[in-house]
């Protein structure tokens, strides 16, 4: 049945670890990972809970296909109530950690309460215990991994941890595993930090068995792997260029949010994209990009491994940053670069390394720096306030300095650590925060890609591209081409993408497979692993059920119709250049149609009929 059938419950207040059987009735309705962990969460936690209080819980969860031969089957999610948004947070990560937890024999770990002093959880197969983490507090993610592997005397131990930003309460702190894979968004790292929980170190040697139909599973996963291999996006584009393949494409589309959304095209885009990463530098004759890398079980291998230019001002005399490490992905390069107007790709790589090293989300970080730059240029943030930093659009020096301050939790870094919504509100300009529900939107401008506006406005964890990536349809023509400049048909498109993505996110599979796969490709793999009842229709229903469960939680947490909206700039200031010139977002037109497609009332609440249809 592919699930381990067992969950670990850790009471941080009492310091206890207990094993519970997995609720199989829930697993059949919510699959695993994002869906199943959210089911546990909404059953156990008051929607009004303060995210940083001991009453909040935080769950690390794998899917049924995590740790199996299904391609990309190495994912895990972290589920909690997010401190950046106050909404449900589900952050997804790759690397190897998720598969290791599953191989140790656990589907998920639920943390509750708050430890009186810093601790980490050690899991070696069945054996789980909380250990003192006093010596780890104040350490970076990179140091923490090294120390815990040494302590376990096992280099194959996998670590998922927070850096100093999570300890310091940076509201967009991540949880990082395998040095540079992250459950990146919504501030899940700050919740771990608030509980004095530093890390989970896992070693699993029991493996994942219990496959419903092993022979069929091996056959069908092999067939589906071939589809990924043969597809131009998953077989060529992503392995060769990574997600950075998008930088020039989206810029030409006129949908690259630039300088805090003032513009939709960045004149420096070609200097910070995939081609720039592969170009040989005049200083050392080497390219920034070293190689590509796969996460556990992945056929695509989109990950970037890069080396910074050792002569760049940010790392002179800092050899600790000269080695190969996680490189720029598109969203990070956009946030650190285009959103701030910075075209120095080495500075972006440096800031990206600091995000990985101390665990904070480069999307929210970059976008917040962009907002701060606008406030600085308006004279609302002064040089005294920044501690002498000239926070101008385009300044690579400013970006690097601010990143160092956020990492260390010092000075102006503390204000950046609030995220753009709180920062802009503090300086009297809340409308300058490019966010929805308090979370910054990523690298696609809703004026140039209309479906993404609806995606951001309705995403259950605040603005996000990974909840319904309609860029696939509107720009790349996957599975069918739609016009990015119109709103017609987008409510149905967004709904379909949201439901499908929820199913993928709950299975243990990476959403990047959806460039080549649909739910019809996922279903036979889940069915062979978990049971014949997981048909295409059932997985679509499960996806829709999960979406509505998350929405219901948010409604109970206090979110209403007015929170499903975009920053005013996107509705009032038209795109100045490119194919979308003269256009604003048509969000106000799309929302009512979307509610109708969802079976919600005009306030965005689930109707009794929808509840009963989905079994909620």
């Amino acid at each position: 049945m592919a699930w381990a059938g067992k969950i670990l419950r850790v009471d941080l207040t009492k310091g206890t670890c207990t094993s519970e059987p997995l609720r199989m009735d829930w697993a059949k309705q919510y699959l695993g990972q994002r869906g199943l962990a959210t089911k546990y969460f909404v059953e156990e936690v008051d929607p009004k809970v303060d995210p940083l209080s001991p009453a909040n819980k935080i769950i690390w969860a794998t899917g049924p296909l995590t740790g199996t031969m299904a391609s990309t089957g190495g994912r895990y999610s972290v589920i909690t109530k997010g401190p950046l948004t106050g909404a449900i947070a589900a952050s997804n990560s790759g690397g190897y950690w998720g598969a290791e937890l599953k191989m140790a024999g656990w589907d998920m770990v639920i943390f509750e309460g708050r430890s009186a002093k810093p601790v980490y959880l050690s899991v070696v197969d069945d054996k789980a215990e909380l250990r003192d983490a006093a010596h780890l507090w104040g350490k970076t993610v990179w140091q923490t991994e090294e120390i815990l592997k040494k302590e376990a005397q096992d280099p194959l131990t996998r670590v998922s941890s927070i850096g100093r930003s999570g300890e310091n309460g940076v509201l967009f702190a991540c949880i990082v595993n395998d040095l540079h894979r992250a459950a990146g968004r919504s501030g899940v790292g700050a919740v771990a930090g608030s509980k004095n929980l530093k890390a989970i170190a896992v070693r699993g040697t029991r493996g994942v068995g219990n496959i419903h139909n092993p022979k069929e599973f091996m056959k069908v996963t092999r067939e589906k792997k071939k589809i990924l291999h043969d597809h131009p996006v998953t077989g060529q584009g992503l392995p060769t260029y990574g997600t950075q393949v998008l930088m020039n494409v989206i810029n030409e589309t006129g949908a690259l949010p630039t300088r805090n959304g003032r513009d939709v095209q960045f004149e420096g885009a070609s200097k910070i994209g995939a081609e720039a990463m592969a170009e040989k530098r005049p200083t050392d004759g080497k390219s920034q990009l070293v190689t590509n890398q796969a996460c556990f079980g992945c056929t695509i291998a989109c990950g970037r491994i890069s080396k910074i230019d050792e002569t760049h001002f940010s790392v002179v005399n800092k050899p600790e940053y000269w080695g190969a490490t996680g490189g720029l992905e598109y969203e990070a390069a956009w946030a650190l670069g285009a959103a701030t107007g910075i075209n120095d790709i080495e500075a972006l790589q440096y800031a990206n390394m600091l995000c990985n090293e101390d665990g904070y989300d480069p999307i929210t970080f970059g976008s917040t720096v962009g907002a701060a730059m606008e406030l600085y240029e308006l004279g609302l943030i002064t040089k005294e306030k920044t501690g002498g930093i000239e926070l101008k659009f385009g300044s690579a020096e400013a970006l690097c300095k601010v990143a160092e301050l956020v990492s260390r939790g010092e000075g102006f870094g503390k204000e950046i650590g609030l995220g753009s919504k709180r920062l802009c509100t503090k300086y009297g300009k809340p409308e300058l925060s490019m966010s929805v529900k308090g979370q910054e939107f990523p690298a696609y401008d809703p004026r140039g890609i209309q479906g993404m506006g609806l995606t951001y406005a309705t995403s259950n964890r605040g603005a996000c591209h990974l909840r319904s990536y309609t860029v696939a349809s509107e720009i790349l023509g996957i599975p069918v081409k739609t016009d990015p400049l119109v709103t017609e048909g987008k409510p149905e498109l967004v709904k379909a993408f949201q439901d499908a993505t929820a199913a993928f996110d709950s299975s243990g599979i990476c959403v990047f497979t959806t460039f080549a796969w649909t739910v019809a490709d996922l279903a036979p793999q889940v069915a062979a692993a978990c049971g014949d009842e997981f048909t295409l229709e059932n997985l679509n229903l499960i996806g829709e059920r999960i979406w509505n469960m998350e929405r219901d939680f948010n409604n109970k947490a206090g979110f209403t119709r007015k929170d499903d909206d975009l920053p005013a700039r996107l509705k009032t200031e038209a795109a100045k250049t490119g194919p979308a010139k003269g256009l604003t977002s048509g969000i106000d037109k799309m929302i009512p149609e979307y509610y109708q497609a969802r079976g919600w009332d005009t306030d965005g609440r689930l109707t009794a009929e929808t509840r009963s249809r989905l079994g909620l």
Partner: protein
Amino acid sequence: MQKSLHINPDKCTGCLQCEMACSFENYGTFNTAKSRIKVFDFHQTGRKVPYTCTQCDEAWCLHACPVEAIKLDAVTGAKVVLDDVCVGCKVCTIACPFGTVNYVHDTGKVQKCDLCGGEPACAESCPTGAITYVDADWTGLDRMKQWADKLGNQPSAA
């Protein structure tokens, strides 16, 4: 024709599908801890290198075994551990210069790559061609071809 596993680390992305395939073939579970092939990740350089038994002709493990539990499979050339003969003394693990034969606590026996009887699951599962199963006498053929191609594209010396 005898074949052998051929490893090209340049093509390895570190996805560990080889380790999963190996453990599934031998234990019926996906369990990288039980794999006979291991991928090493040198993160400071970004290099990933799969490593397993190369099936030495004069195999140290085979000669060291006091109970003759390691036998030559004449068809594949693999040196195969006979589970019902192995006493778990681990002398072979000391004798092997490469570390590719290892003790398994759960079974009390040693394990090493046996080429899956001639259809190695690791090579079959590798998505990038970093692990291939090729003519044992011509493991260098692909690399020769690469260089030959370079030569072929030179302007003629006439």
